[in-house]
């Protein structure tokens, strides 16, 4: 069934189709519609789930960790300050190997108060052991929730589905909402190998000495390393069932490109508009949109970028004292494999618009310079 829905509701529909069993959430702009619709779904029994309406995001994640450990499929959604308040428990979820799926609306962090798009909230969580998917349209949001459960429950790693504030969360698009029976055929019920039950008493997460802790973290990393392969496998299966492929990256016009843009989120869609326009001018430009940020798909990124003459990474985020974060990852992926010049641009912090013209400026700059004039090239900043 095709429906015109907002990005936030695409998360809700995704959770409903995944038949989540326990939801726990706390409201924050611009996430509220996700949980409002889920509340309606629970109230009308369209979704057989318990919704724990907690007093903070910290408790939201704590409750889901408990519910997931008890063997239930769990979901929440948050944004910015809510996500950073959860930080401690993100480690807890991943370290406990609990396949929780969460929507996060990318929003800037205060001060000053700013509710608009910015990736620093989720990227500040990159070392917590969660998978991170950055989405470019509402269809992808819905599809990603379903795929994320499949991957998460196979590898016991939690997953974050990320969408830009307003430019996706509140933007209405046509979305194909799959049949429940089809989703059920793709995503079987959650049956964890171990769970919290009096039938088989175990102590989870107790005092763990250096004799054991190291191996637990080694295993988490080993599972993480399997993610790109499982994404490919489940993404192809999704394509077979639903007609849409879900891969680690979206490569657009890259095969013959001299310059490849590296983008993420909605900026990744806008970049395609710029690519089309500049191709008409005869410039060989392509766009590699990173969908899977954690684990970073090093091999795939390398595969596409090593043939380019120049690479321009556009970040809507910054690691203060370093660079844009996708820029760091891209450099790290190419180190030792290619000497292609990598330009690092920062644009759109705190919701400043990233438009096709922004990309034209970036592309013009990259073509007209041998190498970047600085480690960070700021686009549109009023100096």
């Amino acid at each position, binding site marked *: 069934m095709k429906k015109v829905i907002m990005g936030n509701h695409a998360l809700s529909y995704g959770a409903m189709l995944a038949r989540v*069993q*326990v939801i*726990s959430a706390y409201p924050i702009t611009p996430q509220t519609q996700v949980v409002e619709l889920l509340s309606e779904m629970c109230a009308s029994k369209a979704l057989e*789930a*318990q919704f*724990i*309406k*907690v*007093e*903070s995001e*910290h*408790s*939201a994640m*704590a*409750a*889901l*960790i*408990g*519910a*997931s*450990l*008890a*063997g*239930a499929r*769990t979901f929440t959604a948050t944004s910015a300050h809510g996500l950073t308040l959860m930080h*401690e*428990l993100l480690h*807890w979820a991943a370290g406990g190997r609990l396949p929780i799926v969460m929507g996060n609306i990318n929003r800037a962090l205060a001060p000053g108060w700013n509710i608009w798009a910015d990736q620093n909230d989720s990227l500040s969580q990159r070392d917590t052991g969660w998978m991170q998917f950055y989405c470019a349209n509402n269809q992808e949001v819905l599809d990603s929730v379903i795929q994320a459960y499949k991957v998460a429950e196979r590898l016991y790693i939690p997953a974050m589905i990320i969408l830009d504030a307003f430019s996706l969360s509140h933007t209405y698009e046509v979305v194909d909402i799959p049949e429940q029976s089809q989703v059920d055929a793709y995503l079987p019920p959650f049956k964890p190998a171990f*769970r*919290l*039950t*009096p039938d*088989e*008493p*175990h*102590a*989870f*997460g*107790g*005092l*763990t*000495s250096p004799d*054991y802790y190291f191996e637990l973290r080694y295993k988490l990393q080993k599972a993480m390393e399997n993610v790109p392969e499982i994404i490919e496998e489940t993404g192809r299966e999704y394509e077979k069932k639903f007609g849409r492929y879900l891969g680690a990256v979206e490569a657009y016009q890259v095969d013959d490109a001299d310059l490849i843009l590296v983008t993420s989120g909605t900026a990744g869609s806008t970049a395609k508009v710029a690519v089309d326009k500049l191709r008409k001018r005869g410039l060989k430009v392509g766009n590699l949109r990173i969908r899977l940020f954690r684990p970073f798909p090093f091999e795939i990124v390398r595969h596409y970028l090593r043939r380019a003459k120049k690479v321009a990474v556009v970040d809507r985020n910054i690691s203060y004292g370093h660079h844009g974060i996708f820029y760091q990852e891209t450099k790290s992926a190419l180190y030792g494999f290619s000497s292609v010049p990598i330009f690092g641009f920062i644009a759109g912090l705190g919701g400043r618009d990233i438009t096709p013209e922004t990309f034209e400026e970036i592309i013009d700059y990259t073509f007209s310079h041998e190498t970047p004039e600085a480690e960070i090239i700021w686009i549109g900043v009023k100096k």
Partner: protein
Amino acid sequence: MKKARTMKLSLPIEEYMNPGHLACQGCGATLAMRYVLKALGQKTVLCIPACCWSVIDGPFPYSCLDVPIFHCAFETAAASASGVKAGLEMVGDKETTVVAWAGDGGTFDIGIQALSGAAERNDNIIYVCYDNEAYMNTGIQRSSATPYGAWTTTTPVKHFKDQPKKDIVAIMAAHRIPYLATASVAYPEDLFRKMKKAKEIKGTRFFHIFAPCPTGWRSRPEDTIKLARLAVQTCYFPLFEVEWGEKYTINIKPKEKKPVVDYLRLQGRFSHLTEKEIELIQAGIDRQWHRLLRLASEREKLSVGGE
């Protein structure tokens, strides 16, 4: 001819706690767990945040308890328990009792937000706070459960804690939860009876269990029960129940209230107190006790008036 001796057990013989735990000698918190599990039985799940019990249970891969434990984050005991309860119900287990088991720091201080949230939602959990009146697991630092006058490593004798203990029971009563009770390791039958009663009630149930800590109180391990009993006999820690935030019932009314000095003098943490300071403590106890009597008797009067 001698009469055959018969012994009647006042608590079930079943044990859900095994030898080999890591508690200090004379630990009140350990006794509390043993009695509570006797009342709740096998179909129980515990959510234990950072506290002495996260160590007492034993290091991975060991556990001294026969029930499953979720060792959760410090400030999340209540929220974790709410989540576990919801999760169990959604996978078809509606029977298991889910217990949040936290110390006073995890309850009075860092965990109070989550506790208040769960109580307001009336989530179907039992929350047990075993109170040893300071952060004992980290080495005796003051919490908001530390009483006036006590020495801790962060309230040295020269500047002992000069604020009263937070009234957690009043806070929980104000949430109008179906059931809350105080209990003591010196009165296991009373604790057992109330826990059994709580098990059959639906909604948020709160227990405040007095659990002496020889290590932190600078008391003798063999005095743990004596101290816990004195706390009740002096009305320092009265035993009572509150239903729906209104119906107060005092379980043990000492015929003759003992002076608090009897209780204080057995503990090194109070050894610096002057007579004047002890008088202040006594006055505070008297005030609280009268308040409790009033709350309990007002109910009695009300119920008489209603007949």
